[in-house]
Every structure is written in C-alpha cells, then in structure tokens.
C-alpha cells in the first residue's frame, strides 16, 4: 500500500498538467522526490521538541496501520480487531493531532495558523465522515468495513439513493481531509492561505519525506475507502484465483477514476475563502442525515 501511494500523487499531477496544456513530470516523479529527500541532510529548528521529531514517524506508522485495516482487494477475511469504522476514523485523528502539534511546535507564525485551520476543518469534517460511514453501516447492518463492502453490493437495489447521498457527503470530506481543492491548495509552498503545507514548512530531509509520503498514503486511504465501500464492484468475495485476478485491475480502474476526478476538480475550481468552507462541510453532514432518513 505505501508502495503505491506516491504513484497516485504522480497521476493527479500528470492529469492536472495535461489539463493545463503542460507536459508535466512523469508519473513516477514522486518516488524520485522521496528518494532524493531521504538522502538529503536535515535541518531542525532550535525550538523543536520531541513532538516535532517523532511526529513524522507516528503519522506514517498510523497510516500504515489504517492502510492495513481497510479492504483493498477483497471483502472476505474480515479483520474484526481494527476494521471498525470508528477505529479507522479515530486512528486518522491521531495523524491530525500530531500533525497539528508539530505545526505549533516550531513556534513559527505559519505553523500555528496552519494548525488552527486544520483543526477547525477536521473538527467540522468529523460529523460528515462518521455519518457517511454510518449510513453504509446501517444499510449493511455492520460497522466493520469489510462487512460493509461485502454487503453493499447487494443493497444497491433497495437503497441506491442513500448510498449516493452518503457518497456525495463522503467525497466532500475526502477533499477536506486530504487537503485538496477547494479546501487547500497542495501546490503552494508559501501563501498565507495554505493549511497542510504551513504545518510541514519546517520539515526537511527524511522527516519531510515521511510527511509527504504519509499524506500520499492518506489520499490513497480515502480514495480506497470511497472506491471499496461505496462501489465494491469487482472485489474478491472468496478465495478464488479468478476473482482475485479481476479485483486488481478493478481496484486500479476505480482509483484512477477517483484521482482523475480530483484532478479535474482542482483544475476547474478556485480555492474557497476559508469561512465558506464550514458551509461545505455542514452540507456534507446534512446530506448524510438525509441519507440516514431515506434508509428503508
């Protein structure tokens, strides 16, 4: 899973470049960037405490655990220990917690404001995220993510509309949580409006590589949640060679659609003013409330 995530970033950048009539870097460029960063010398701030030093390791480790706990190719083999929807959501909250603390740790004006904005957005996104997964959980009568992707496929006939509404709510949260347009601009490195980049401004070398890689992981986690919970087509339901062989290209195609749509949104939309973002997140929450109301 972490081996794949930088590829996603590369794909998004490539599509964006094409849409802007540029040739763009190859889709493997993020790997080269990570390799380069891992070999660079590192400069730490004088003010950095152990929170700043350990945060990249914590965040990367948590994305690994979350990545291992969500359904990727197959919906059988339920992992009953760590695949509950709330466990996943609150584990991702550990990432946010340490990311925001690391942003405050170095005492720069940018980092603090980045953390403040990040926490504001993630606090408001929480309602939409929990409720969109709750809609699926109620439809499939389990909150285990493997169970959901197993059950949703047969639930389309009865509850197509709730699933669709929940998905729209989820997609808004996806954009917010992965620092994409219209919430944040992943391409800026020095603007007063930046959120995610502001928090990792002081990182360099290995730790920056880990931070970048972790956010690529997070994007892949959200994209696969969206692909495999809401549209679990082509996932292997049993230990069958054919099914597993089909599931790999199916997963790849679904991810590609997700990444392409993110890239398209980023190319034809402007970043919103910060105080308009809460409206968007509340809309996500309300869509999900409707979805729950519509479940039969």
């Amino acid at each position, binding site marked *: 899973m972490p081996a794949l995530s930088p590829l996603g970033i590369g794909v998004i950048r490539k599509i964006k470049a094409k849409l802007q009539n540029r040739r763009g870097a190859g889709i493997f460029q993020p790997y080269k960037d990570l390799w380069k960063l891992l070999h660079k010398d590192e400069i730490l701030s004088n*003010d950095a405490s152990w929170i700043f030093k350990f945060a990249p390791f914590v965040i990367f480790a948590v994305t690994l655990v979350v990545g291992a706990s969500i359904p990727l190719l197959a919906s059988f083999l339920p992992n009953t220990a760590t695949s*509950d929807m709330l466990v996943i959501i609150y*584990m991702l909250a550990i990432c946010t917690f340490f990311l925001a603390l690391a942003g405050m740790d170095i005492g720069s004006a940018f980092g603090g404001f980045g953390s403040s904005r990040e926490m504001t957005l993630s606090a408001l996104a929480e309602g939409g995220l929990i409720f969109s997964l709750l809609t699926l959980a109620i439809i499939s009568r389990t909150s285990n993510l493997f169970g959901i992707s197993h059950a949703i496929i047969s639930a389309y006939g009865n509850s197509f509309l709730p699933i669709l509404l929940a998905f729209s709510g989820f997609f808004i949260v996806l954009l917010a949580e992965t620092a994409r347009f219209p919430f944040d601009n992943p391409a800026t490195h020095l603007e007063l409006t930046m959120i995610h980049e502001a928090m990792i401004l002081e990182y360099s070398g290995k730790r920056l590589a880990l931070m970048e890689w972790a956010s690529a992981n997070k994007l892949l986690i959200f994209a696969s949640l969206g692909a495999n919970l809401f549209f679990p087509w082509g996932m292997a339901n049993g230990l069958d060679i054919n099914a597993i062989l089909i599931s790999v290209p199916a997963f790849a195609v679904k991810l590609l659609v997700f990444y392409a749509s993110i890239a398209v949104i980023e190319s034809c939309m402007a970043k919103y003013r910060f105080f308009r973002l809460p409206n968007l997140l509340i809309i996500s929450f309300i869509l999900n409330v409707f979805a729950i109301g519509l479940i039969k």
Partner: protein
Amino acid sequence: MINAIASQSGFLVLLSLFAVGAAGSLLLRRNDRLANYWNGFFAIAGSLWGILFSLVLLNATRAVSFAAAPSIFPLLSISFKIDKLSAFFIFVITLITLFCSIYGIGYIRHFYNKYSIGALGLFYHLFVLGMLLVVTADNGLFFLIAWEIMSVVSYFLVIYDRNDEKNIKAGFLYLVMTHIATAFIVFAFLLLYKFTGSFDFDAIKSGVSLIPSAVKNAVFVLAIIGFGTKAGIIPFHIWLPGAHPAAPSHVSALMSGVMIKTGIYMLIRIFLDMLQPVPLWWGLGLLVIGSVSSLLGVLYALTEHDIKRLLAYHSIENIGIILLGLGSSLSFLSLGMPSLSLLGLVAALFHTLNHATFKSLLFLSAGSVINETHIRNMEKYGGLIKNMPQTALFFLVGSMAISALPPFNGFFSEWLTFQALFQGVSTLAVSAKWVFVAAAGALAFTGGLALACFVKAFGVTFLARPRSGEAQEAGESSFSLRFAMGALAALTLLFGIFSGHITSLINRVGNDLSVFSCTTSFVSAFPDQSLAVGSFSTVSAPVLLAFLVAAFIVVLLTIKYLVYKNQKVTTGLTWDCGTDLTPRMEITATGFARSIVTIFKAVLKPGISNATEYLDEESRYVPQSRTVILSVKDMYKSYLYKPLDKIAAAMSERAKGIQSGNINAYILYILTALLIALLLVK
C-alpha cells in the same frame, strides 16, 4: 477473609480511616509538615482500603446493607446499602482519591506557613467521606445530610486560597447554586415521601406504582435540575467553571473527576432503579440535555485561555457524553429493549470511570504547571515541554485520552456510547430515531471539537517558545506529583487495553440492578479483551495497540538505520520570511480558537472592541497604544440568570413594603398567620 472485607465492618473501617484522618489533621494543625503527612497517610490508606473493598464487593454475590444505629427520628434511618452500583462508584472515588492524595503531599507544600494545612486535611477527608456516604446512603433524609456534608465542605475547599477575591466570589456562586439545587432535591424527595410514605429507597422502589404519573414527571424535572446542577449540565453549570479552578489543583481533580459524578450516580439510582418503569420522553429528554451539554461545553472550552477553566468546561462536555449513554439506556428500557439498554448503561458507567481518570490526570498536570509558573493564563505559557518534559508527556496522554484517540481509555467508552446511539438510529421508529440521530451528530462534532481544543491546550502550553519569564524559568515538579500523574497516565492506557475486562465487570454491575437482573448485555467482552456489540461492531484493544506500536517501531528503525544514514542533522533558526522570530509571533490560545469561534458566532456571540489612545488627542494622527478586546458573551448569564436575578430583586423590593418597622403591624401579621394555619389544619 474475602467475606470479612465485603461486610459491614469493612465499610466502617473505610469510613473511620477517613474520619481519623480528618480528626488528626485538625489536632495537628499547629504543625504544617506533620499535618500534611498525617493527612496523606490516612487518605492513602483509606483509598487503598476503599479500592480493595469495592473490588471485592464488585465480585461478591450479594450486597452489603445495614442500618448503623437505631434512629431517634422516625423518618431518618442511618442505613446503608452497598450494591454493585455503589461499589463501582466507591471504586471510582477511592481510586482517584488515592492519586490525588499522593499528589497532594508534594503539592500542598507551597501552602506551608500561608494557610492552615490542618484545615485543608480536615476538609479534604470530610469531602471524601461525604462522597462515600452519598453513594451508599439508603434513606432520603440521610442522603440529604451526606449531600450537604459533601457540598458545604467542598465550598470550604473552593475558598481555601482565600487571599484571591475571585475565589471567594466563585465559592459564593457555588454555595448559592448548590443550595438552590438541594432545594429541588428536597422537594423531589418530599413528593416521593407523600405518595410512598417513606424516605427509604427500598420502600420508595416498592411503592413506585402508587405514584401518579404527573408526580413522577415532576420528580424527573426536579431531579434533573437538582442533580444536574451538581453534575454541571448546561444551563445549570454556571458555578462549575468558577469553582473548580479556584480550589487547590488536587481538589479540583477530585471535584471535576469525582464529585460531579455523584450527580450522575443519583440520576442512575432514581431513574433506572427506583422509579422504573418510566415514560419514553425521560430518556429522550436526557439525550437532548446530553447533546446540548456536550456541544456547548466543548465550544465554551475552546474560548477559554485559563487552563483550569478550560478543563472545567470539558467536564461539562464529558458529563454530556455520559448523559448520552444514560439517556439511550433509559429510552431503550422504556421501549422494552433491555439488552440495548444495558449497552447504554455500560457506556455511561465506563465513561464515568474513564473521565475520572483522565480528567484528574489533566487537572493534576495543569496544577503542576501552575505550581511552577504561578499563572493560569495559557497565553503566558509556551515551551514548557523543554523545562517540564514529564509533565508534558502526562498532559499529552491525558489530552489523547480525552480526545478519544485509540488506544487510550477515552476511545473505548466513546466507542460504546456511539454504538448505543447507532443502535437507536438503526432500530427505532421515526420520532425517537431522530433524537438519536441528533445525539449521534452532537457526539461526532463534540469529538472533533474536543480534539481541536486539546491541540490548542497542549500546543499553546507546552510547545513553541516561552512567552513569559515565568514559563522560561519553570522547572520539573517534585517526585510525588510526577508519581501521581505517571500512575494515572498508565491507568488511562491500561483501562484502554483491558477495556474487555472492565466492560464485563460493568455488565455485572448493570445486572445487579433489578431491571437488568436477567438481561444479557448487547455488548459482550471476550477473554482476549475484544469487545463485540451484537453482530454490528467489534474492536480489540490489545491488537490495536500492538499494531500501532509495531508499525511505529518498524518505521522508526527502518528510517533510522536502513535508509541512507550518512546525512548530517543540523539545527537552525525557525524560518519566518527573514524576520527575527519572537515569541509574540506564535499563535496564541485565543488566536487558535478564533476561527472556530467565528464559525459558531450564532451561539458564542463573540464581541470585539477597539480602543486607541493617541499621542495628541487633538490631531489624532499618531496613536500611542491600541487595545483590542476580544470577548465571548455568556448567553446563560444574559438570557437566563440576569432576568431571574432581576425578578428576584424586584420581588424583594416589593416584599420590603411589608417590613414597616411598626410593631403593631407585625403582631397583626402573626395573628393572620395563626388564623390561616388554624383554618388549614381544620
């Protein structure tokens, strides 16, 4: 041996340890040091005995109940009944008292020669004693006496630091509010007495069918106001953010961690035990109250920059979360789903225990910071992680637990509360379902906002650079403080890992109540500590912890030793666009929360006022100083308490007319009163 502990004498030993502690502290009040050690020794011994006693009782088969002395008053019987619910609360009280007392030994040294340590010891012991009596009393009048002991003694603890006028004011507000609440409780018990003919809890319980439903509803409202004030639910919370910070920190930890839970205990005792069966709207009403308290509690906490007031507001939030569990439990019970109801109760009780541990941990760490810096304003902290690394670590653990981050204990009780609400959303019919949806939404947003609030609290206090001389010169606290905080931090992790054990224990506590006597709980725990809620959800704490730790170690070791390791790590200045970075450029607590406050401006009503002083008042070109005051309006004060206050003042003004000073008029009053009384009696 076991039988000897779980008996009448075992309980009397517990009470007498605290009584001896109280008396001894008073006798030794001339010698501060001796009083401190006496106080600490008996408090620790008493708490250890209490933990043992309650654990034995939790595993025993029957309850301990006895009447202490033949009473001289007909309605008052000094009788105790310690069933598993009481034992659970004794466990919570004594567990937190143990660590607060250890902390206290080191902490109260700075009061030597300033205030009387003996008096502090006396009140501290009486306070714990009062709480123990409250959760074990089996008679309404005796309960009220215990309740008053607890309330009045805690008032003296609040105003202990009496040189600060603010503390006296906060204490007075507390005293007034707590007595208004007691009046409501007295009224509730009088109503129960009128219809059942007894103050004994068992007699009320067996006579519950005699109570007409309108009276029952009145008792519900009275109990919510009375016990809700003590628990700190919104809008009866106004004493709490003032009183908890005013007390010495280890007492704040006890008040916030334990005392407000006695309100919860009585709500459970009355609603789930004594007055069953109850109508559906009670449970739904509790859900609404819980949602409002949890959301508004965390929003007000975000606006605070006084570290102890911030924590006090989080107590309101967590009481809200406990009420969400309790409310869902009551609703399910009224709908005839005892199995789901027990799930709600387990969630509420588990969160009670967890909140007691992490909130006292946070108060103790905040106390350790205040002890070193002598300021409570977070804007003046900063960078304390370098001077107080251990306190910072403990505060971080507490923050993660209260923000419900796995694998700490807060996560598992919030998880259970969520499950109870989810079950309501998925199984109930229309109207009740939407209350559960609202409650689940409130809990979801509360979780997110609490995370933001603790990033603020930890970041502004411990990270970046010191923003005042006091913060720069702070040192690490003494051993007893660090020991108490460390032990509590370890407990928050252990209660998380052994959430399976604790859940099955609380299931048994629930089964001990007569409504659940033959109910299998919807949440089941397995020997490997994993939890399962029906077939809906499962989680396993040890596996979760093992995954997280293993992944962290693998990442750390791989990056440190396997990836190219010949690089240099240098340290330099933080970059800030080429300017010299000063601590004044860091984000402050107010600045951090300002965007959330702006988003919720409909509720919080933030105000801003500018004032500029000019060098030359005539020309007004060159300003000498500018002041910006950001404020948050307290809605309850302006819309609820101010009008009430006005009405009370106007009525007093009217009543003054009666007092003419003429003795003949007074005699006339007496005569009329006598006549009316005679008429009524006839």
